[in-house]
Every structure is written in C-alpha cells, then in structure tokens.
C-alpha cells in the first residue's frame, strides 16, 4: 500500500481435496503470487453457500475466488456440479446488483496445478485492482444519518489491509 497502488482484498474458498492442496503445492514449490488472497478451506466447493460470498463482499472483500476439483473429480462426486449451478445463478444476481463479473470467479484447479493457482490469483488481483475497491451502498442504521453515502468504512474495520 505504501507505493499507493490499490491492494484488493480477495477471499478465496478452496476445496480441501484439490484447490487447497494445489495452493499448498504452489507454496512448497516456492511459486510467488500476489499476497492479496485470504484462503478459507472448505471440504468441498459444494459446501459453498452463496451467503458466504455476499457476507464476504459486505465485510470488505473486493473479490471472491472459489476453487474446486475439476468436474468428475469431486471427492464427493457432485459437490462441484452443485457449486457451478449456484455460482451461475449467483453471478446473474450479482450482475443485477451492479457487481462486476471479474469480482467473483470460479475455477477448477486440481491438486497438481500449483501453477494454475499462481496464474489465477495473479490474474484476478490484477483485474480487481483495475476495477478498484468494491463500494457497496452502506446499509442504513436507525438514528444514523439518513443520507446514504457510497463509502466502505466497514471494510477497514473488519478486514486488515494486506
């Protein structure tokens, strides 16, 4: 942040069996990638509740990355199919709410694809950096100022800058 470039905050939900393992592999292989991502491990991308995504966005994430096993490879057979259906519908809803496509992304990354973790993260960080901070309309509070200003002070409070 010291050089003035915007450092986006990306929350990543990675499935334990593939993408999380791939991120681990990227780590042990000493691949370097942008440090803007906080990874949350899920047992399967099918565990991804769309509420996780909107909660992350409201709490200060500028983007959300979801990673799962390639279709056919899900440890629980169909979890990633379910994730794809939810993601497709959620993306359409987010688009209606004015949230840019690049901010929420789903990728299939196998356990051996450490390099793909690196590439996807770098790409996404660059894209979200170009978009700038996500400024959701503030949720009004009773007895507060009734004028709604598009700022995002909650972001600073709930998630430290990278």
């Amino acid at each position, binding site marked *: 942040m010291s050089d003035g470039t915007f450092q986006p905050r990306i929350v990543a939900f990675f499935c334990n069996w593939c993408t999380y393992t791939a991120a681990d592999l990227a780590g042990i292989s000493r691949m370097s990638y942008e440090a803007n991502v906080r990874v949350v491990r899920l047992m399967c991308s099918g565990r991804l*509740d*769309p*509420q996780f*995504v*909107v*909660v992350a*966005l*409201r709490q200060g994430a500028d983007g959300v990355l979801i990673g799962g096993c390639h*279709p056919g490879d899900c440890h629980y057979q*169909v979890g990633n*199919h*379910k994730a*794809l*259906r*939810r993601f*497709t*519908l*959620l993306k*359409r*809803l*987010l688009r*209606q*709410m*004015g*949230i840019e496509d690049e901010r929420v992304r789903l990728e299939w990354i196998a356990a051996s694809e450490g390099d793909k973790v690196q590439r996807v993260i770098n790409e996404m960080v660059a894209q979200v950096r170009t978009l700038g901070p*996500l*400024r*959701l*309309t*503030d*949720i*009004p*509070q*009773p*007895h507060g100022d*009734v*004028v*709604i200003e*598009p700022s995002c002070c909650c972001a600073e409070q709930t998630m430290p800058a990278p």
Partner: protein
Amino acid sequence: MLSNSVTASFFGSGAQRNGRKRLAVTELPRELPLGLMEPSGTDEKGLSPNYPRYLGENVMSKPKVGFYWCASCGGCEEAIVDLAADILGVVAAVDIVFWPCAMDFKREDVEAMADGEMAVCFVNGAVRTSEQLEMAELLRRKAGLVVAFGSCAHTGGIPGLANLYSREGVLAAAYDTAFSTLNPEGMRPQTAYAAPEGTVTLPELHETVKKLDQVIPVDYYLPGCPPPVKLITGALGAILEGKLPPKGSILAPEIALCSECPRRDSKPEKLDFTEFKRPHQIIADPELCLLAQGLLCLGPSTRAGCDAACIKGNMPCTGCGGPLEGSKDFGANALSAAASALEATDDASIAVGLAEVPDPAGAFYRYSLPASLLYAKKGN
C-alpha cells in the same frame, strides 16, 4: 437481528383476552422489561407477574393503539380489516388513537400525545420519503412498542425492489420513459412550489428504500405480504396479555414453510428436475410439491405462518414470510436451495435449466432487497 420463535402459548385464547380488556396506559418506562415476559403463572388479579406495566391496571381506559402506513400498497391495512368479526374484539379491548387509512386522525393528534402514550403502534410499509421518516420517528417517540407490520416494514417488501435502480432511474421511468407517460414539458415533482396563495410542499424522495428498522428501532416484526390474520390476532393477543417474547422477535413460527405445507410428503428427498418453469407454462399437479414440478417455490427458505396460502392456490411460494432464524441473507439462501434442486451438471444444461429464472434479484429478493447484505444496486 434478534429473533425468537413464538411459543404455542403465545397465541393465547380469546377468552383470556376478553377478561383483561379494561386497561389504561400509565407511566411508560423507556426500557420495557420485555426479556422477562415469558408467561409464568398469574397473580391474585389473574395477571401474569410479568404483565407489562405499560398496559397498566387502571379500569378507566384501554391501551392506546395506532396504525400507520409508509411506502405501502394498502394491503396491510386491508389485513387489519380482514380480522372480520375479530376486529370487534380488538376495538373493544383497545382504544385506536391513530389510523389515517380508516379514521380521521391527523399528525397533530399524534404530536399532542405524551411520549410513550400510545401502547403499541403497528407500522406497515417501507420508508422512502422524508415524510415517512418523520412519521416513523414521531411514532417511535409516542409509542411504547413499535411493530413492523408486513413484509415492507419487516424486510423492505415490493417497494424495496426500487433499490435495483437509482433514484434518478425511478423518477425517469415514472415521469419520462414509461409507455403510459406523456410529459412533454418534462415535469418532475418539486419539494416546494411558490403558488400565489403561498408555498406548497411535497416530501422529498430518498436515494434508497429502507425497511423500518433501518430508520427507527423496532420491537417486534409481523412478517407476510400482508401478515396472515392468524399471526395478527396472535400478536394482538400476546400484547394484550403481556405474553410477549423477547424484544426483536419475529412474531411467526420458527419453521420453514415446507413444514406446514400440505404437499410436503410429496417433496422428494433429492430434487433433480432438468429445468425451472414459470407458473403460466404448466398446469401444476394440485397434489404434488411445486418445487418438484420445477416451479420456483421458496418454501424451503421461507418462514411459515401463512398455512401455505399460495400453495393452496396452486402457486409457488415467493417468500413473503421472510427469512428463517440463522439466515444471513434471504435471497442468497433461497438461491442456494433453488440452484441445488436442478439436475444439470454442465454450463449448457445449467443455462437451459435456469432460463426461466430470468430475474434472480427479483425472484429471490422479491420482498427483501433492503434487508439483503447487498442492500441496493452498487452505486445507489
């Protein structure tokens, strides 16, 4: 938001209610001890020891009750009239001191009241204008309890869908672009106009639509568009009997609509239809679960209380009962349930399966956009 289920005893019997109809408002504490109001036996007067003091025990007058509407369609007012014969019991038990839709009371009448003089005020409708905000704040001061009545007050309701557009977009649609609009002079409502007789004013339109508890603290919520009669009588009875659950509670059962749906036994363990359909596209089997027939029924994510009214009319639930306890975002939660129900596994078949859900924001946030974590379209 706190929310608690309403226990069976909460819906007290009418007989008990009638025994206690002569009540007066005495001194109203600002902080009502509502957390202590679980019914637990009665004292020598037959009152629960937790009987709310704001209702008093003076036999000379009855608790004062008000009804008000903000950004509302009038359906919630209709719901009160729908109490039918029961409304006579209400009228006998309380003193209606404010109800602009039905009786000739003015804002001045409310302003003349002492703070907290009204025992309860039921407010329906969302808040979009300066006038609605002022009235909500005024009623909050004058009423001991404020109940958000109906989906619009509870979660933003149908008017809340305007949060998908900017204020300017809404005005442009209404005054310029709508096919039924003819406005060659490009007139727009002004908040003040200097007429020869003096300046006349109109309320200001806010940037976004808010639910009631986004502008004032709310004590209880009655969900539904409009709230079902059963829930209204239950709430009135509970208030009159002092059997209220903790503050912040939603006065409706804490179970999903599917649990009270007459078709629940036909809902398969695993749903896997290939595409969603809209109600006009099929003649739905009147016995089988509508979701299993491919209709977008939000029963799994919606709070019960309406006795599955829409399902009984062979129409899918659109979610007016609002969120269940623990739901962080009604729309995202309902979307999750809907997407899970499809069978499709690849992009192409998913696109086909979801083709008939053309407006996800409108479908999943139909009654709750201002209550969603996204609140309004970005940039509004």
